[in-house]
């Protein structure tokens, strides 16, 4: 094995040499992976997916990834802030 995963842990390599389309279940799995790649766009796609694989497209995909990150991050921040407020309010309003 060489290439970028040459040193990867054996559990990462598991299945590396399985045939690409063994059955419907596995195919679904693979489809999900490709969709992921398209959505986030940060992967080195194994093949050029459109004739127009230029930089503008790259920038757009990076923006989408940033937006996704921001969504997850904001959600977590809101949860944290809510905990902070709830802890104080609970004891402010109800005592113990």
């Amino acid at each position, binding site marked *: 094995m060489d290439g970028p995963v040459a040193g990867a842990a054996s559990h990462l390599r598991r299945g590396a040499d399985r045939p690409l389309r063994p059955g419907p279940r596995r195919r679904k799995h693979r489809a999900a992976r490709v969709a992921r790649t398209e959505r986030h766009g*940060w992967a080195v796609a194994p093949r050029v997916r459109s004739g127009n694989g230029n930089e503008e497209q790259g920038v757009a995909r990076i923006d989408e990834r940033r937006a996704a990150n921001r969504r997850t*991050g904001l959600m977590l*921040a809101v949860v*944290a802030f809510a905990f902070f407020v709830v802890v104080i309010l609970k*004891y402010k309003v109800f005592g113990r």
Partner: protein
Amino acid sequence: MAAVTHEQLHGHHPGPTGLMRWITTTNHKDIGTMYMIFSFIMFLSGGVMALTIRAELFQPGLQVVQPEFFNQLTTMHGLVMVFGAIMPAFVGFANWMIPLMIGASDMAFARMNNWSFWLLPPAAVLLLGSFFVPGGASAAGWTLYAPLSVQMGMGMDLAIFAIHIMGISSIMGAINIVVTVLNMRAPGMTLMKMPLFCWTWLITAYLLIAVMPVLAGAVTMILTDRHFGTSFFNAAGGGDPVMYQHIFWFFGHPEVYIMILPAFGIVSQIIPAFARKPLFGYASMVYATASIAILSFAVWAHHMFATGMPAAGQLFFMYATMLIAVPTGVKVFNWVATMWRGAMTFETPMLWATGFIFVFTMGGFTGLICAIAPIDIQVQDTYYVVAHFHYVLVAGSLFALFAGAYYWLPKWTGHMPSEGLGKLHFWCSIVFFNITFFPMHFLGLAGMPRRIPDYALQFADFNAMASIGAFGFGLSQLIFLVVVVKCVRGGERAAARAWEGAEGLEWTVPSPAPHHTFEEAPIVR
């Protein structure tokens, strides 16, 4: 090709140099390095406090410090070690290693990452500076129990402010880690293929997001009790000091797992590398980590058996606590099973990792003993508890940090750390550690209370022994400083895969890791 695409996407300006480079950096490796340097400085500061404590306790009677100052020392030692040394060190490891392990080019929020770090030095200045304000530093213990914390001087306000800032820093760091792990993995790097260190940090980050706000709420309530006329914890105004303990430990117990889960992650990377076998029971490790995290929310009152809980409450918290020993046992079993019939060698990282298993497990057992309510009512607030938590925090968290540092120093610096000095560091540490803390079990069982500057004569021998051990342990840590400085400056060049059995994406990039890695994500199959 990679470079070209990247230049076109972001444009490459030569960044600022010198100090400005470090102040403005958004690079996960720079930030990771700063976290670790900060944490080591705090480790030495907290260490000086610990040695002053042990100097006072070398003999019965008062020799070195005043009792008031002694109380400030125990308080600040705890706060500095927990929030200044151990937690930031693990965040430093996360910053350096998680992007390398999952094949991401950086953390998800690179600029926020810079801010998370740079909040810490001002917080440290507030905390350490509080020694010099009128009345001195906070002396209520690291747990800041009411009513003491409601009554003290302005050192307490500085501590509260520092905790607020460090809490915000931790929450931002945790959000960054969750988003990085969830959204930035290279194609094919499914969650269940992630190195265990990433898993343990993902779960730790969730714990942080859940409980740091609770701590922030608790200290905010102390603040308003002190200055804004509320009576959350003030019995005279209808408040309840024991309620503070409930809120604090709802944070506090998950917090101790925040300090140990990433350590489990580090050890789970190192043992397979030096046993030259894949980790035994990878999936069960993930589930065990998650179970520990979930259970850690249901055991907080094991710190409060002596406050007079109803028997049903005591039983609940006692059994819930014992339940945590099950997933913890699964982990220890898996590490040992990984070593079983492996082709083991004992380079420095492996020495620290095996030392960790041995001594951490002893701390786990004393934890179980503390968890037995009738026993705990005897040992609560004695040196037995001090022995317990130093076995899990020093021999657990700190030893794992050293293991990880020796393991990844080649990746960070490009040079192999000195085996001779590393081994010397390990053997001195583990011997002096046990000389310091093992006698504390006996002291505690014999009834010596913690956080007291003087003691009865019958405790003298074990205390003298502990103090000698402590100075030996403290001095041994300077060996680590020498190793790191030597390693940064030169030494045997490290290969990309610095250790023969090491596996994972981080070993596919050159050593030292270039400033930018995985700008094109690797494909993991």
